[in-house]
């Protein structure tokens, strides 16, 4: 990963943040965090750690390409199509699960999906697709079709202590409204296109996490029972939201509040 590209990318992100700040005033504390990031971007160090981990446990970029049976040249576009149905996994898998398969193939015990090593490694692996447009194909086969449909259902289903669904707070008719001082973000391609910029670094938590972990954060906050990483339903939710952001340009690691 070329450090130069990354710095340009994070600068681009930062300037779009400050632009957004004009329509909704960012707090001074938030501003301070963003400018701190300019000086010293811990997300880059985590992605660099991911690069080392992939080299050590998966044979690096070449090992990943070979695992997927694509050329290194085609690898970025291939990564931009995850989650995918892979017959050898007998299911639709997210990129981190595919990395578990790769580690196992190389004789290593796979990292847990919920581990900072996996967050770093999957952030690096997905960053290989930076600049590519999300090209998920939910009509590729019946498994992908089913996953998209299941994901939509998970997204729309009201549940938990307060009877809320993801859609209660992220549907177009409430996006931009304020929930206890937080503007509700659009998470599809017309908004933050979350699938294109997660794994991301969360400044309020000082860590790198994946999209699915971010989903868990909202479930937890809104009193929905938290569903586990890697479950069919969780992968389906990722399929659904990735398809909603189809065509958006991938830019990893995202920087988030």
């Amino acid at each position, binding site marked *: 990963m070329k450090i130069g590209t990354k710095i340009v990318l994070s600068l681009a992100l930062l300037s779009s943040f400050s632009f957004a700040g004009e329509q909704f005033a960012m707090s001074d504390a938030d501003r301070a965090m963003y400018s701190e990031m300019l000086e010293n971007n811990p997300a880059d160090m985590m992605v660099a750690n991911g690069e080392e981990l992939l080299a050590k446990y998966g044979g690096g970029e070449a090992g990943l390409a070979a695992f997927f049976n694509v050329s290194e040249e085609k690898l970025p576009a291939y990564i931009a199509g995850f989650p995918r149905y892979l017959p050898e996994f007998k299911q639709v898998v997210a990129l981190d699960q595919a990395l578990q398969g790769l580690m*196992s193939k190389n004789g290593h015990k796979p990292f*847990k999906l919920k581990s900072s090593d996996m967050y770093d490694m999957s952030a690096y692996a997905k960053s290989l697709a930076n600049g590519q447009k999300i090209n998920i194909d939910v009509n590729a086969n019946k498994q992908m079709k089913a996953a998209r449909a299941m994901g939509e259902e998970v997204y729309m*289903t009201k*549940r938990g202590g*307060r009877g809320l669904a993801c859609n209660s707070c992220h549907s177009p008719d409430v996006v931009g409204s304020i929930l*206890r001082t937080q503007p509700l973000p659009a998470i599809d391609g017309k908004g933050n296109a979350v699938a294109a910029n997660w794994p991301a670094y969360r400044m309020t938590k000082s860590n790198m996490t994946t999209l699915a972990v971010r989903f868990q954060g909202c479930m937890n906050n809104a009193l929905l*029972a938290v569903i*586990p*990483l890697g479950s069919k339903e969780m992968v389906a939710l990722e399929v659904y939201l990735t398809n909603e952001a189809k065509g958006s340009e991938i830019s990893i690691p995202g920087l988030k509040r």
Partner: protein
Amino acid sequence: MKKTVMMSLLVGASLFAADYSSVIETPNASKIIEKDLMGPPTKFTMPANCVTTDADAIARGSFIFHNLNGGKTKGDAPKGLAKNNADGKPKQYGNCVACHNIEGAVGGGNIGPDLTGYKDMFVATGVRDNQFVYQKIADPRVDNKDTHMTVNLTTKLFNEREICDMTSYIVSPK
């Protein structure tokens, strides 16, 4: 030569003809979701003496309205309201202010309508009555199936008394 052998080994041992379904994490979530679902939209009738001008009831309603849970509040909860459940976990409150502005709201949201001046504007004019407010808090899906408002009685997050306390607070003069 050596490199070619390496490469073909890599490709040979690639995805194909392998089975990775058992080495990856694929926990089951369907039971978790099933248990988390709530009942269908339900009509509720206010119990007798539900809405009151009792200061303690209004104080509880106000506290539930303005707070998220017992772990996030300082000081004591008002008389008759616990900060923890029987299992020791923080009791959940309404956090209604996340979506609604009202008198004295700190950081009130605007997803739901502003409830400021509710008594004069909506109750005194006959546009709304106590039963309407009670039903709205208990299960707003009954009159708006696509509502983004929380469901509070059908989910059993609160009991009838607590819904009455919140109703009493909203319709009280402030």
